[in-house]
């Protein structure tokens, strides 16, 4: 087990290095420019100076090595310094990965965005799972009944209607027409008492529900297929012959076995929480990691795009590993060599 784990981890390092190089080259080939959003009244010579000050005139390999050094050496040292309050070397002079648009350290921008993304997208993922599992079980158990048809219909709608449509629809109904819920998410809102908690629930409700619908739609289909497959297995028949209660069969035998592939799906989906829900975040102005990424792409803020996309790659590799390990933990038949 441990050997398997460390071997996989060792393999991850060259994979991630290769990903970072591909990302860097791709971003360098992209034709947009960080001075593109400046007003035209700023003359070309000044733009050239701005580009110079951002280090854009260095050749690509220099910039790549610089980024590697900043990301893998300087930023971790910085994190250690902040966590333990110590100073390692000359922290004043240490170059950090800086966003071109804000000129502030990328890591700080990401840390600032993490809470709202985890709250909104994470909560919707959780609620999506909570909805999807029972819906999957029930629709499978009552295959072709009206409840199955309804479940299929709702999940098809949830899966195929984009969130920018459902989100807008929710805003038009609940904010514009009914004036019940705020249409804009206030990221500075702090929960201090009951009424501010109430406001937090109100502002988080629409984005969370819109995203939950989408997440639940996908997972409930997997769950349904998995339960259906298990219901026809011999062990179910054996259990029934033994005279077990139907509820016990469904929830102790079938449910647990059906969870095996679904757990993998859930674990593999976790990185998408961090990458945010780009569109939903824009619609409700949640301004989390997804919005940070899209603004950075539009503004050609390459250090920020590079760092964010690379972190997402790390998460994906990591959760792939976690999914494999979880699989072994819940299913004793699987052995790691």
């Amino acid at each position: 087990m441990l050997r398997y784990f460390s071997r996989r981890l060792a393999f991850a390092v060259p994979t991630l290095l290769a990903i970072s190089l591909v990302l860097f080259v791709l971003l360098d080939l992209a034709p947009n420019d960080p001075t593109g959003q400046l007003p035209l009244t700023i003359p070309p010579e000044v733009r050239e100076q701005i580009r110079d000050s951002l280090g854009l005139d260095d050749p690509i390999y220099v910039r790549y090595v610089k980024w590697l050094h900043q990301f893998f050496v300087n930023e971790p040292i910085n994190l250690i310094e902040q966590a333990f309050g110590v100073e390692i070397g000359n922290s004043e002079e240490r170059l950090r990965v800086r966003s071109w648009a804000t000129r502030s350290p990328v890591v700080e921008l990401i840390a600032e965005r993490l809470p709202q993304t985890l709250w909104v997208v994470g909560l919707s993922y959780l609620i999506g799972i909570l909805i999807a599992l029972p819906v999957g079980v029930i629709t499978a158990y009552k295959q072709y009944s009206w409840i199955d048809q309804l479940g299929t219909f709702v999940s098809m709608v949830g899966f195929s209607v984009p969130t920018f449509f459902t989100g807008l629809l929710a805003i038009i109904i609940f904010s514009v027409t009914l004036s019940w819920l705020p249409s804009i998410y206030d990221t500075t809102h702090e929960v201090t008492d009951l009424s501010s908690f109430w406001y937090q629930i109100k502002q988080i409700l629409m984005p969370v529900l819109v995203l939950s619908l989408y997440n639940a739609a996908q997972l409930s289909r997997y769950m349904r297929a998995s339960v259906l497959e298990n219901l026809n297995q011999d062990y179910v028949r054996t259990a029934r012959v033994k005279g077990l209660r139907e509820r016990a069969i469904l929830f102790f035998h079938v449910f647990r076995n059906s969870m095996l592939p679904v757990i993998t799906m859930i674990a593999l989906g976790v990185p998408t929480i961090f990458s945010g829900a780009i569109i939903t975040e824009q619609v409700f102005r949640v301004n989390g990691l997804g919005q940070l990424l899209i603004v950075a792409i539009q503004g050609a803020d390459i250090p920020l795009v590079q760092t964010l996309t690379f972190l997402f790659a790390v998460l994906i590799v990591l959760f792939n590993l976690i999914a494999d390990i979880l699989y072994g933990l819940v299913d004793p038949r699987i052995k790691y060599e």
Partner: protein
Amino acid sequence: MEQLTSTYPPRCPFWILLSCALLLWACSPSEKNPNVTKEEIVDRHLDVLYWQAPSTLNPYLSGGTKDMEAASMIIEPLAHFDENGQIVPTLAQEIPSFENGGLSEDHMSITWKLLPNVTWSDSTPFTAEDVKFTADYCMNDEMGCNALVEFQDIDEIVVIDELTVQLRFKKPKPHPFDAFVGSNNPILQKAQFENCTGLRAQECTEQNFGPIGTGPFKIVEFRANDVATYVANENYRESDKPYFQTATIKGGGDAASAARAVLATGEYDYAWNLQVEPEILTQMSQAGYGEIVTGYGSQIERLMLNFTNANSALDLDKRSVYMDGNNPHPFITDFNVRKALSLAIDRNMLVEHGYGAGGAPACNVVPAPLRFRSPNNDSCTESNVELANQLLDEAGWIRGDDGVREKDGVKLSILFQTSTNTVRQGTQALIKQMWSAIGVETELRNIDGAVFFGGDPASPDTLQKFYSDVEMYTNAFLGNDPESYLANFTCDQITSPKNDWLGTNVNRACTPEYDKIVTELSITADPQKREELAILLNDTVIQNYWLIPLIHRASLSARLYSLGGVRMNGWDSELWNVADWYRIEANVFIFKEAEVSN
């Protein structure tokens, strides 16, 4: 199976209970409008929406309008432009002139007298040293200061006494109101930014995100690309202002949803830059919460006509390269073609479909201020397809079988590019239609704004390279004097591989006569003579059809009816007078409840 189903379903699971509770809560009629509760708590709180979120509060380091405006609540220049483009003193006692001795007779210097007893928000005095420091800060070569153009003629800055500062120029400068006039070059506090000069400017995140200012507000928290939270500056020089105690600028989303948050739901007091299709804005305004406000500056949406051959079959060393005028465009260099292209365009229709209250038909390249506006070109607002057709017929451009005109094997077939933006694509489609009526075939192309406006010499799609026949974008001038803007069309500004495509004359039309008048303007101080020369230059550009002006664009924002004091400004930051903004007591929500009870 019969028996099985009878034991099912189990007790109502938790998630069903949860959703039932949510549904009940959502349907409960006693729930109050969340806006009203919020409004009651934060009556003296100003909620502003900038859908392009501010990235920094140091306008010298970013230069996007959003950043400059978000900073303008905190840091101030010596003088602002008012809504008519007039210079009005802010941190200066008066505007320097020959009469008050502020301007020297030889145009080599300008002397500003600062308001006495002004303090920074940290209670330290504001002095001439801060002004000198700010200029030195921006003029540092290593820094990449984007307001550099306003400072570039300055030789040195001399502090005469604590409240007097003199800017000395390298050459005579008849219009010396560039530096420290307008919100894009405000004064920074020397004590705060002293260690942030040159390359270090980038690393001073704390300072860039929290400048200490003399303005009506100070920053509480700045989250880049998300939200800025302000509180009133208790050391502001007018003790009863600002009227609001706190303010936030929220960012993110898009223009249409920003308009909705003010006009349709009344959640926000003010929303900035709403270039949205006019019918959507009109529809939203009907909710009765607020209105659209517009401010005209010098923004002109124009068609640039490429005078060099941009044929994609040409080698890169020839394509769109000026070659002293020896690489002419096959048909745009024909005066009659250019004139016909302009005559065929119905500008009123473009305004109606794409701009509404946010634009007016334009016939000049210098549309404002009024004293620089040429009266000679106003007839362009009427399109004249007949005359256009006649001109082309007479010039020998004959319609072929496909309805497209041609002469000597050259077809009037135009590649027309612009940036990606729904209003621009709508305008493109309309113009294509209008040109087809005069036998001109048009192929449309749009390029992402970050590329088109990016100016990266390695990209073939920048507006400077102009690898197409016609392109459309908006340009304007800094401040209220068009001198440097009109100098964009001189021969030495032509973009080409020689200057790495850095230049401002992108359509590559120029004449020595025009250059001569530009030089004359740069040494003329007499206001009346300046107006005459500027109008002459404008008319040269327009009457030779170097470009085709389309729309005089306004800055377009929205305010709640309960927000008073807004003086919408197209020349400076829209928040330039935020100290005077106030809450109108007749609450808009009371008005709405009354309407419902009827």
